[in-house]
């Protein structure tokens, strides 16, 4: 239903804009470098720039933005901090000193010793929210299990007296004595070594934790280090040496993760990483088993997953080799008249949609001036070029994807493709939300004999399943991506060349060729990722050339059927490219003059290939002359089936003209093209692709996240044993929140003792108005006193749940 609405909205918006304009709303974007967030705000205030595409987390700057009606911002999450405990002991073999944090109960008690509200409010100035679990509060898993999380959060609320009591009891069991308020073990004070990162707020967190530990009788040493200096101690060093007890860790995720179940296995078990610290983890057998099952998706339904998840959340708190502190809130400021999409995790630079939605008011055309903290950091090439978030933020507007990422839920929507069929093995826990995917549950997926499964790098031709697996092959998942009929008429490369099937086939070839030693294009650095790919890949075929139909077989699957439907559309790891400009780079690498990957470039002592500047351009220019003279076609034995000599000639000519005009080889199919990159001046000039496939406004529905606002009305006094009704108002920007955009509204009743008494589902009455009924039999179980009614509203269009609570009194 929701999917239908969103799909209709996307199509309607596209139709509305179609008559007037294609591509983005603005004509050009000028991007400059501004490393200082304070300076950027000053520039925004005087309208020297329109958008600062950076995740600012400075509370003082946030205050400036809030106080200025001419400025607005986009919120994002994705950074989170924790305490990493050294679990070795209770006595370090390396030093003979006591390590209290080898005891799970002491680690668990640390959860209630610290005050996460203090950290988020005082240290982060409100730019953070308390975090208890290895899942992000703004991502779907937290919303799925909100009631479980809330109960545990209350259980582990700040209670320093209880923490002291538990820690004292455990310390005494270890043989330590508290003399004059100080813990003594074998005649010496118990020293806690805090390894503290000094580049950001974690320095203050470290000081705060140190003060707390000193307050309960420990002697604390403070070791302040940068990331690089701390790494050999906590990450690659042997924890048995006892060089640290606690490390102030930090993590980041740049995409909205729809499935964070593997985090338990990664963060708490020795399977997480092959480092001495992780090897020292000894989770309880039950936790170990639950974490592994979640990691390997060993469950058959979402209900079974919920049970495992619930257990994991509880057990991870008991284990607490990691103590989660806060989810950091960041914001990307911009002038109020400009609207732009920001990803909930990756902000503006991490969003695929920002170039499509950026606009000044209702203006059509015009220029937007954007600043980023760093641009043109490393060479741009589509296979292994720069991976810096800001460079990628500028590369994305020049390319297009088969599907598009929903910046607020992480869900996928069709972009270049029209629809997809997913055939999934029936015993796998895969669900579907959106109606562009048709899910078919099957006993098994037989891979057809003519599907491509391998590549012969010498003969330069595909090997079919029939050749490699005469006995046959099956796959857990089969996907069929359907492209529109007019794909090849409506999609053109920026240099004017029409898209062709060869662009897609070359992408397939590269899956194998770069990782095969016999290939001229072999790159040793590709082998490990290739082996990962091989592990789950079961075949691919193109069943129709026009309209294009792309069929893919794999043993890899996700909880959402919509997630990662392979489309073959030529958007590579670091950008977009057609067979011609990609082929040019391949030719230059084969000539041993450049290399796509920095690894190969370093070892071969050649240039790391850049399509947009530096010595690479001259090399590419020379190679292009050779190619034009020979009318060369890359991987000719295969690609010649899809490229005629005339087409090849036209493409090379187009590319040469493009280079002559723009002085770079960066050619995509996206809504913007790279007009010019000024390397020394650190300026990137993007211009609107007037031939872009889609009409302006196609993705405007994602202009801003519809984070629900909730208010609770209704009974404040409830008679024990009587039914009570609570009214819940849900709005967005003052308007009723459409019922179909809400997945559910859960409510929880916490009794006068603070214990969870009931969990129920509110019922929709009309748009923006829901009702929760507390049944008489539940109210009969409550005791006299003050109770709390807590609501979690879970939306389907944005993954952040909204919490609200209200007190009510029960009486006889």
């Amino acid at each position: 239903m929701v999917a239908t609405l969103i799909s209709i909205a996307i199509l309607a918006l596209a139709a509305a804009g179609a008559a007037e304009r294609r591509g983005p709303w603005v004509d050009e974007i000028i991007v400059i470098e501004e490393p200082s967030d304070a300076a950027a705000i000053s520039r925004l205030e005087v309208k020297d720039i329109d958008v600062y595409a950076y995740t600012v987390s400075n509370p003082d700057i946030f205050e400036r933005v809030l106080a200025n009606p001419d400025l607005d911002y986009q919120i994002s999450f994705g950074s989170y901090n924790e305490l990493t405990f050294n679990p070795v002991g209770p006595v370090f073999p390396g030093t003979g000193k006591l390590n209290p944090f080898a005891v799970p109960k002491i680690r668990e008690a640390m959860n209630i010793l610290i005050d996460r509200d203090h950290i988020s409010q005082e240290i982060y100035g409100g730019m953070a929210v308390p975090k208890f679990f290895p899942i992000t509060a703004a991502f779907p898993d937290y919303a799925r299990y909100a009631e479980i999380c809330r109960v545990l959060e209350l259980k582990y609320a700040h209670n320093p007296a209880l923490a002291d009591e538990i820690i004292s009891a455990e310390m005494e069991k270890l043989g330590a004595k508290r003399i004059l308020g100080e813990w003594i073990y074998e005649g010496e004070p118990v020293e806690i070594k805090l390894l503290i990162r000094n580049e950001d707020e974690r320095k203050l967190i470290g000081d705060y934790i140190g003060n707390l530990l000193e307050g309960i009788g420990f002697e604390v040493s403070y070791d302040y280090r940068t990331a690089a200096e701390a790494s050999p101690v906590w990450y690659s060093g042997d924890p048995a040496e006892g060089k640290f007890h606690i490390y102030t860790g930090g993590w980041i995720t740049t995409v909205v993760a729809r499935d964070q179940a593997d985090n338990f296995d990664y963060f708490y078990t020795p399977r997480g990483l092959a480092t001495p610290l992780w090897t020292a983890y000894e989770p309880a057998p039950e936790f170990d088993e639950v974490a592994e099952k979640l990691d390997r998706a060993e469950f058959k339904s979402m209900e079974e997953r919920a049970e495992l998840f619930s257990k994991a959340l509880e057990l991870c708190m008991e284990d607490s080799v990691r103590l989660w502190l806060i989810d950091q809130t960041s914001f990307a400021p911009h002038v109020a008249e400009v609207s732009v999409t920001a990803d909930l995790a990756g902000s503006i630079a991490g969003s695929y949609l920002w170039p499509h939605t950026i606009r000044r008011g209702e203006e059509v055309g015009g220029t937007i001036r954007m600043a980023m903290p760093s641009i043109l950091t490393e060479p741009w090439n589509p296979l292994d070029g720069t991976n810096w978030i800001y460079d990628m933020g500028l590369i994305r507007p020049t390319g297009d994807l088969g599907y598009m990422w929903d910046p607020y839920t992480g869900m996928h929507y069709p972009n270049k493709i029209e629809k997809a069929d997913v055939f999934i093995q029936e015993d796998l826990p895969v669900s579907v939300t959106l109606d562009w995917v048709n899910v078919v549950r099957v006993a098994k997926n037989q891979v057809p004999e003519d599907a491509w499964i391998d590549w012969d790098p010498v003969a330069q031709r595909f090997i079919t399943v029939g050749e490699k697996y005469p006995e046959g092959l099956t796959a857990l998942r089969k996907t069929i991506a359907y492209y529109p009929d007019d794909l090849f008429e409506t999609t053109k490369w920026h240099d004017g060349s029409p898209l062709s099937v060869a662009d897609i086939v070359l992408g397939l070839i590269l899956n194998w060729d770069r990782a095969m030693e016999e290939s001229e294009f072999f790159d040793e650095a590709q082998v490990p990722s290739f082996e990962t790919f091989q592990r789950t890949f079961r075949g691919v075929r193109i069943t129709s050339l026009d309209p294009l139909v792309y069929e893919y077989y794999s043993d890899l699957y996700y909880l959402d059927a919509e997630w990662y439907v392979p489309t073959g559309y030529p958007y590579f790891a670091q950008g977009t490219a057609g067979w011609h400009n990609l082929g040019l780079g391949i030719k230059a690498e084969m000539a041993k003059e450049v290399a796509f990957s920095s690894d190969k470039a370093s070892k071969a002592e050649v240039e790391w290939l850049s399509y947009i500047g530096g010595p690479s351009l001259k090399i590419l220019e020379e190679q292009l002359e050779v190619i034009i003279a020979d009318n060369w076609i890359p991987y000719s034995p295969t690609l010649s089936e899809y490229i005629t000599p005339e087409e090849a000639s036209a493409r090379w000519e187009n590319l040469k003209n493009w280079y002559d005009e723009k002085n770079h080889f960066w050619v995509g199919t996206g809504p913007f093209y790279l007009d010019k990159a000024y390397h020394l001046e650190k300026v990137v000039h993007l211009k609107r692709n007037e031939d872009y496939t889609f009409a302006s406004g196609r993705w405007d529905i994602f202009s801003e996240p519809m984070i629900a606002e909730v208010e609770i009305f209704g009974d404040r006094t409830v008679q024990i044993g009587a039914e009570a009704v609570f009214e819940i108002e849900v709005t967005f920007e003052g308007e009723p929140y459409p019922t179909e955009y809400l997945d559910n509204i859960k409510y929880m009743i916490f009794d006068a003792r603070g214990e969870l008494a009931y969990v129920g589902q509110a019922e929709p009455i009309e748009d923006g108005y829901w009702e929760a009924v507390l049944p008489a039999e539940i109210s009969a179980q409550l005791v006299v006193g003050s109770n709390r009614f807590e609501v979690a509203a879970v939306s389907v269009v944005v993954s952040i749940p909204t919490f609200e609570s209200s007190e009510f009194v029960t009486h006889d």
Partner: protein
Amino acid sequence: MAAELPSGPKIPQRPAAKRENPALDNLLRFGKYFITRVISLSITLVIAVYLTVLVANMGGAVDQIREGQIRERIGLMALADPEIMRMPVEDRRAMEEELVRLEMSRYGLDRPFIVRSFGYLTRAMTLNLGRAEYLTSDSGSNQVKLIILERLPTTLLLMMSSFLLIFFISLYFALYLSRHYGSFMDRAVIALAPVSSGPAWFYGIFLIMFFAAVIGIMPFGGMVKAPPPTQWFRYALSVLHHMTLPVIAVFCSSLFIAVYSRRTFFLIYSTEDYVEMAKAKGLSPRAIERRYILRPTLPPIITQFALALIGQWQGAYILETVFNWPGLGLVMLEAINMYDTPVIVANSVIFGYLLAFTVFILDIIYAIIDPRVKVGSEEGRL
């Protein structure tokens, strides 16, 4: 006065010998002296560069840091890839280890540091600057020479312009003040000299606040407007516009102290006995200034000029940061933070060569311009 004198060449003291061919004798003495000088400077340079290699790598401890960073990066990469996370643990381990091995080999970390350290030294001394380990130049090349050369013009433009302006203005202004000792202007400069205790970036912040944020007539930073003009003269005008505030900032931090110290320097020289004698002889003030004040002060001024000149090419990190000026200072700071040894060593060795060359040239210049210096001559004495 002794403190102001340059540390000129040592004067060999040899017993007097019978001079059969004084010209040849002088040439031999010159040759011997300069060969000794070249050798000593070369040895100093080798030691300095090797020390740079050791310091930049913390005597090899950086290898551990880099290995830790590589492992951490690969661990994070695994976390972000569901395909890797779902692999059996043993296979995942093997893959991670293979990736670590590749990265270690790429950075040469599979060879002992001591072996690599001599490689760094050899390449540096032969000015084979090679390729950076992490950094790339603005245009995307990993060649160290391009990393430096692409930033050199902008650095020189800003730093040299500021330096040359301050140097010559302060020189003439100091001379003027030394002639008008005790005047209002003289007292004003003395009063303003403490202003120079503030660094250029400090003034830069205020200048940006006032001229860019409040008045809006100057840019916030950068070296040219965006997008850069296509016509060269418009481009040049835009660069001039952008470098105005940083140059003023350097002026504020350096001009008054430079004038004050040089004016004091000239005043000291102008009270020498031979200056008094010249005055008594009735020479004109111009002649006294040119022959009796400026000439003996020339060696220390030239030394100061030459050494400061070669120092300019390294840029000024904080000033560049404040004005977002694409200079070498920022690159070097980045290289230090990333432990990019080839770039750090290249910077040191270029500066080392420039310094050694300058010192060597200064030795020659002293001999030419200062009549009191005679290399190797038994009568040479100050």
